[in-house]
């Protein structure tokens, strides 16, 4: 398998081999990221393919520092778009469960948060992430960015599922307080 730099070089050379190498190296991760959201193999496959096309269209001119993180972001965005389109259907993906956890944490009767722009909220989330330890940041993002299951997170971080659950509950509580303090939630 080729290293990231070589794959990016292939993208810059407009060689279709770049897609094949990218799929060989990270295809499984992309597929899992999409499947966690959509809970459907076919949909996930299509989203990953769409993400490859998106990558092809943006590299060049973009030269990402981390090819994996960059393409993962495209996969997630495309998968979420499809998810919202199919939202009326059965809710049973890991993403649904993760979002239900957040719903309880973000519940508020105010309309203040409706006015906040997505980009502004993203900056606030970034500043909140900076207050967390590296391990807690990884746990939080694995759950709510990658929609990974507790067991997957436990395996990656090297702690028990119970610890993952406790840590996430604490982080959500801390995040709620952080958002209330900044008047994003009332």
């Amino acid at each position, binding site marked *: 398998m080729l290293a990231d730099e070589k794959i990016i070089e292939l993208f810059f050379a407009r060689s279709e081999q770049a897609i094949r190498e990218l799929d060989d190296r990270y295809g499984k*991760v992309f597929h899992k990221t999409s499947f966690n959201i959509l809970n459907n193999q076919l949909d996930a496959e299509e989203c990953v393919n769409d993400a490859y096309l998106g990558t092809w269209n943006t590299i060049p001119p973009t030269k*990402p*520092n*981390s090819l*994996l*993180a*960059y393409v*993962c*972001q495209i996969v*997630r*965005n495309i998968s*979420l778009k499809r998810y*919202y389109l199919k939202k009326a259907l059965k809710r049973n993906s890991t993403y649904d469960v993760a*979002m*239900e956890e*957040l*719903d309880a944490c*973000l*519940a*508020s009767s105010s309309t203040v*948060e*409706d006015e906040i722009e*997505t*980009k502004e*909220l*993203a900056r606030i*989330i*970034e500043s909140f*992430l*900076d*207050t967390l*330890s*590296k391990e*807690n*940041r*990884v746990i939080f*993002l*694995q759950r*709510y*960015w*990658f929609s990974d299951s507790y067991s997957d997170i436990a395996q*990656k*971080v*090297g702690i028990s599922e119970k610890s993952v659950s406790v840590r996430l509950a604490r982080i959500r509580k801390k995040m709620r*307080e952080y*958002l209330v303090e900044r008047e*994003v*939630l009332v």
Partner: protein
Amino acid sequence: MKSEKFSNALGEIDVKYVEEVVSYKAAKKNKWLVWQIAAACIVFVVLTVGIVPFLMGNDEESVFVLTAYAYENNAAVEYELVVGEKVPVSYFETENGLKGFVFSHAKEKTSEISSISIMTEGEMPGVIDEIVGLELETDKHYTLYVPEQSKGFPYNFMIPYTDEAANKVIFCYLLVEETENGYTAVIERMEEFERIVK
């Protein structure tokens, strides 16, 4: 707020956070190393608890170790304090906006509940649940020293510790100073007294 909006915003965060997750590797636990450490600990405990007190005439030594905390690269870093050696410390904040310097020491009994005591000018006026940015360990007691701002640096204060096993009371006199790069803490001296139980 709808989780959908939050999720969309999460998708807009800087890619560096995603990079951190994909490149994260948990520290591998080397089973052999764990066994070796365990064996070394047993030997140490046997020597300390059994032989050393025997040679020293059963005069138990205190195991009091004080730890200070500094904020470095967005993470809390621990520094073990030794008499006369300065270590960096940082201001930490509670949920209620109280600002102070954090110190910890091991719990004497595992059955004790871990706590965070607030200390102001030699008094312990209360207990809190959380210090922002600090992962609390369940086997420690924490002290948040909140200096009187009007007094200014350097700050002198004392953390007391009761060592029931060694039947001692230890007074740990600390000095916190302001430097060009931040703040430092040092144990100026430690005083030990025999514990009198009435």
